C-alpha cells in the first residue's frame, strides 16, 4: 500500500504540466545551485512545471563570467629569460606577486558564485574543476587556471568529448600532470594514467600497458614557456604505433577517440554526476540507461543533465537530505539565502579553505572526495562557527546588518515586506518558524525548535545549527 502510494506520488511528481510546489522548487534550486536558495529564487520558479523549471535553470547558464575578473589575471607568464635576470629582491617580489594573483583568482571565483544569477553554471564549472583537477600549488601561474576555468564555462553544459580534447592541450593541465615532461625518449605517465583512471574509464578498466602506450601517444604536446601555450613538438613525439585498449593508435587524439568509444567512459561520468546531483546510491539500471543516452547524444551534457534532473530518483522523498552540503554550499549558499552579496571574495576564499574546499587548490588529482568526507569534527565545528556568525550578523565587511540586509530572505509573514533589523528581534510565532523551516531546511530539523518565547533571529540560529542544515 505504502509502495503504491509512493508510485502514485512519483508519477504525479514527475509528470510535466503540474506546477512545482514550494518544496519542489526549493529542492531543484538547492541541488542545482548551492544548497539553500533564497526565497526570491524559489518563488520565481513556482509558475513552472518540472520540465520547464529545469529548462528555466538551463536558460540562465552563461558561458562568460558574470563578474569582471581582475584585468591582469590572464597576463602571460613572464618569460624564463626575463625571470632569470631578476635579482633576489625582484625574485621575492615576483613570488609575492604570484601569491597575490593566486588569491585574487580564488577571490574572483568565490565572488562570482556569490553574485551570479546562475548558480547552476557555477555548480557545473565546479564539477568540471573537480573532475579535471589542476592546482595552483603545482601550476603556479594563476593565469593558466583562470584560462582553464573559462574553458569549463565554455563547455559547462556542452560536449564532453570536446572538453576532453581541449583539456589535453590545456596549459594548466599539461603543467599539473607533467605532460610537460612527456617526451619521446622518456615518456611521463602521469597524464595518461589519470586520463584513464579519473577522467574517463575509472579504476580497473585499463592495464599498466595501456597507460604506458597512451603516454607515448601523447608525447610531444609540451608547454612552451615563451608563448605560454601548449604546442606540438614533432621531434619529441613518438610516431610509432601503440596499442591502447586493444586498438592501434598513433596520437593523443586517437587515444581520446578510443576512450570515448569505450562504454565505461560514459558510465564513469554519469555515475559521478549522479553522486553530485541525485543521491549517494545510484541505481545501476538507471546509470546504464543514462550512459546509453549520453553516448547516443554524442556526449552532449545538456540532455544528460535534463534526464538526471527529471529522474524519479531526483525527486524521491527518501533522497531529500541525502547529500552532504559542500563548503561552497555552506558559505555561498548561506550568504545567498540571507541576501548578503557584498562579502569580500578573499574572506570567502579563506573561509572555503578552512571548511575544506580551497578552490583552485584541490587536495590531489582526484579532487575533493565530497560526501560524508566533508564533515569531520573540525569542519563541522567550523561550519557551526560560520553559521553562528552569519545569524548574528557578524560576517561581513564593516557593519553587517545580517539577516535584515536588503531583500529579506526570511520575510516571514508578508513576503513583500522588508523587515528591519529590529523586526528580526521581534518574537517568533509558530507560523513564522514553520515558514523558516521550509525555507532553510530540506528535511525536518533533528533538534526540537522553540517556536515561541524567542526572537526570529534566535529561531534562524537554531535552524542554522541543526544537523539538517548540513544536508540537501
Amino acid at each position, binding site marked *: 500500500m505504502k509502495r503504491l502510494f509512493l508510485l502514485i506520488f512519483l508519477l504525479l511528481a514527475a509528470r510535466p504540466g503540474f506546477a512545482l510546489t514550494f518544496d519542489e522548487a526549493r529542492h531543484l534550486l538547492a541541488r542545482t545551485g548551492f544548497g539553500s536558495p533564497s526565497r526570491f529564487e524559489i518563488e520565481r520558479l513556482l509558475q513552472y512545471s518540472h520540465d520547464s523549471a529545469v529548462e528555466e535553470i538551463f536558460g540562465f547558464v552563461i558561458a562568460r563570467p558574470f563578474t569582471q575578473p581582475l584585468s591582469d589575471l590572464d597576463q602571460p607568464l613572464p618569460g624564463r629569460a626575463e625571470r632569470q635576470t631578476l635579482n633576489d629582491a625582484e625574485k621575492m617580489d615576483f613570488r609575492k606577486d604570484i601569491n597575490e594573483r593566486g588569491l585574487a583568482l580564488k577571490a574572483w571565483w568565490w565572488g562570482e558564485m556569490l553574485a551570479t544569477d546562475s548558480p547552476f553554471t557555477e555548480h557545473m564549472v565546479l564539477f568540471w574543476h573537480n573532475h579535471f583537477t589542476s592546482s595552483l600549488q603545482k601550476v603556479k601561474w594563476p593565469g593558466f587556471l583562470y584560462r582553464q576555468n573559462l574553458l569549463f564555462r565554455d563547455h559547462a553544459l556542452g560536449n564532453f568529448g570536446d572538453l576532453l580534447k581541449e583539456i589535453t592541450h590545456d596549459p594548466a593541465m599539461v603543467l599539473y600532470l*607533467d605532460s*610537460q*615532461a612527456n*617526451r619521446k*625518449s*622518456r615518456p*611521463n*605517465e*602521469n597524464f595518461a*594514467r589519470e586520463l584513464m*583512471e579519473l577522467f574517463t574509464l575509472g*579504476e580497473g578498466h585499463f592495464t*599498466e600497458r595501456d597507460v604506458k602506450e597512451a603516454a607515448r601517444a601523447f608525447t610531444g604536446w609540451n608547454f612552451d614557456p615563451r608563448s605560454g601555450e601548449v604546442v606540438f613538438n614533432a621531434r619529441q613525439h613518438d610516431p610509432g604505433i601503440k596499442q591502447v585498449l586493444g586498438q592501434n593508435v598513433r596520437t593523443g587524439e586517437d587515444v581520446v577517440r578510443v576512450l570515448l568509444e569505450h562504454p565505461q567512459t560514459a558510465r564513469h561520468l554519469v555515475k559521478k554526476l549522479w553522486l553530485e546531483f541525485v543521491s*549517494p546510491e545510484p541505481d545501476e539500471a538507471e546509470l546504464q540507461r543514462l550512459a546509453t543516452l549520453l553516448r547516443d547524444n554524442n556526449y552532449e551534457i545538456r540532455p544528460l543533465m535534463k534526464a538526471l534532473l527529471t529522474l524519479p530518483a531526483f525527486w524521491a522523498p*527518501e*533522497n*531529500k*537530505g*541525502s*547529500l*552532504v552540503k559542500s563548503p561552497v554550499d555552506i558559505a555561498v549558499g548561506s550568504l545567498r539565502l540571507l541576501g548578503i552579496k557584498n562579502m569580500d571574495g578573499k574572506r570567502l576564499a579563506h573561509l572555503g579553505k578552512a571548511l*575544506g574546499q580551497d578552490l583552485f587548490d584541490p*587536495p*590531489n*588529482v*582526484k579532487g575533493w572526495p565530497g*560526501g*560524508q568526507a566533508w*564533515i*569531520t*569534527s*573540525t*569542519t*563541522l*565545528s*567550523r561550519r*557551526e*562557527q560560520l553559521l*553562528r556568525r552569519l545569524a548574528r550578523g557578524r560576517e561581513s565587511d564593516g557593519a553587517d546588518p545580517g539577516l535584515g540586509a536588503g531583500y529579506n530572505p526570511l520575510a516571514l509573514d508578508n513576503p513583500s515586506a522588508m523587515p528591519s533589523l529590529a523586526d528580526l528581534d521581534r518574537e517568533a510565532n509558530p507560523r513564522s518558524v514553520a515558514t523558516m523551516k521550509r525555507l532553510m531546511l530540506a*528535511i*525536518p*530539523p*533533528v*533538534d*526540537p525548535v522553540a517556536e515561541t518565547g524567542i526572537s526570529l533571529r534566535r529561531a534562524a540560529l537554531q535552524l542554522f*545549527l541543526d*544537523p*539538517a542544515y*548540513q*544536508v540537501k
Partner: protein
Amino acid sequence: MTGSFSRRDLLALGLGAAGTALLPKIGRAAPAWDRTLVMIELNGGNDGLNTVIPYDDPLYAKLRPRLAIPRDKVIHLSHDLGLHPALAPLMPVWKEQELSILLGLGYPRPNRSHFRSIEIWETASDADKVAGEGWVADLLPEPRLPPAGSAQHPTHVLVLGNSSPGPFEGGNLAVVTLDRQGLGLKQTGMVGGGGQKNGQDHTKALDHVVATRALNLKAAHQIVPERLAQVKMQAGFPDGPFGSAMESAARLLLAGILPPVIKLSHGSFDTHANQAGTHEKLLGELAQGLAAFRQALLGKGLWDRVLVMTYSEFGRRAQENASHGTDHGTAAPHLLMGGKVRGGFFGAQPPLSQIADNDLILTSDFRSYYSMIAEQWWHVPGLPGFKPLSGPLAA
C-alpha cells in the same frame, strides 16, 4: 569488511578464543591502552631508494644518474645501507637503538594508483580485493576498547590536520579530527540535545552529521585549549604543517591525552619532476619533527608509551625519469621509533639486480607490519594469515 568475517565479527561470535588459540600466546595478555600509536602517512608515495640508500650497489648510481645521493654524502649505517643526509637529525635516535628501519615493505601485484594503493594500505586488503573497513578499525576489538570520552581517552583516534581517516573507517571507533594546532573543538557544546531521531528516517548523510556532532560534544569536554596551553613545549619542531602537527601531537600527549591512535600526514612526496630539492626538504622536516617529538616526550617519561610508524602508498620507480623525478613504484622502507623499539634494520633490502619492470620487489608484506603492531603493541590478535614481523618490538 564486506562478504567475509572480520576479526571483530569472530570475536563477537565468541570465536575469539578459538581464533587466538591458533595464534601463539598473544591476545591473551590484556590489550594495552596506556599507550599511543602515532601514524605518519607520507602522502604521495615516498622514494624509499633515496631515503634508505643502498649506496654500495653500483646499480643504484646507474639507475639514478642524476638523483643518486653521492656515496660520501650518504649517512652510512651499515656496510651497504645508509640514510639520506637530510635525515641526520635521526642519528641520535639510531645510536640509542630506538629507530628500526623495516625494509622492502609492499604487497603482491602492486597497484600504482595513489588512491587505490593507499586504500589497500588503509584497509590491509589484497591488491584485487576491495575491503570496506580500515585496518585499525578492524583490529581494535571495540568491546574491549576503553570507552571514548574520558580524560585520557577523549576519543579512540585523533586525526591532526588534513589527513585521511581511512584506516579507522567502517568500524565503531570514535575518530576526532583536529586542526594542526590541536584545536577545532572550542565552538562545539553550545547546541543542546544529543541528536535524537525526530520521528523521521534519517539519511546516512544526516546520521553522519549527527554522530560527528555528538562526538564533538563529548570530546570537547576533554580537549580544551586551556588544557593544551598549559603544556610547556621546547623549540625544535620544524616550520610548516608537518612540524606543527607533530608539535600538537606532543602537546596532546604531554597534556595527558593518550588516545590509542594519533594520525597525521606529511608531504606531498609525489615527486614526478625535479625531485632532489623537494625530497630533501620533506625528509629534513620529517627527521627534525621526529627528533623534536622524541625530545619533548623523553623529558616527561612518555617516550616508552609511544610508538611512531611511517607508511606510504608506495615507493617510487627504481629508475629515475627524464624529468629529474621518479614515477609511482612499489616496495619501500619504513621507520618505526619509540622507547620500546629495538633499533636496527629488519627484513631485507630488495636487490636492485632483481627489479621487475624497473620496480623493486617486496621482501615483507606490509600486513605483517600491521600484525606486529597489533600483537606486540596493542596486545590484540593481528591480521589472519600475516605473521608479525619479528624483531623491532619485544613480544
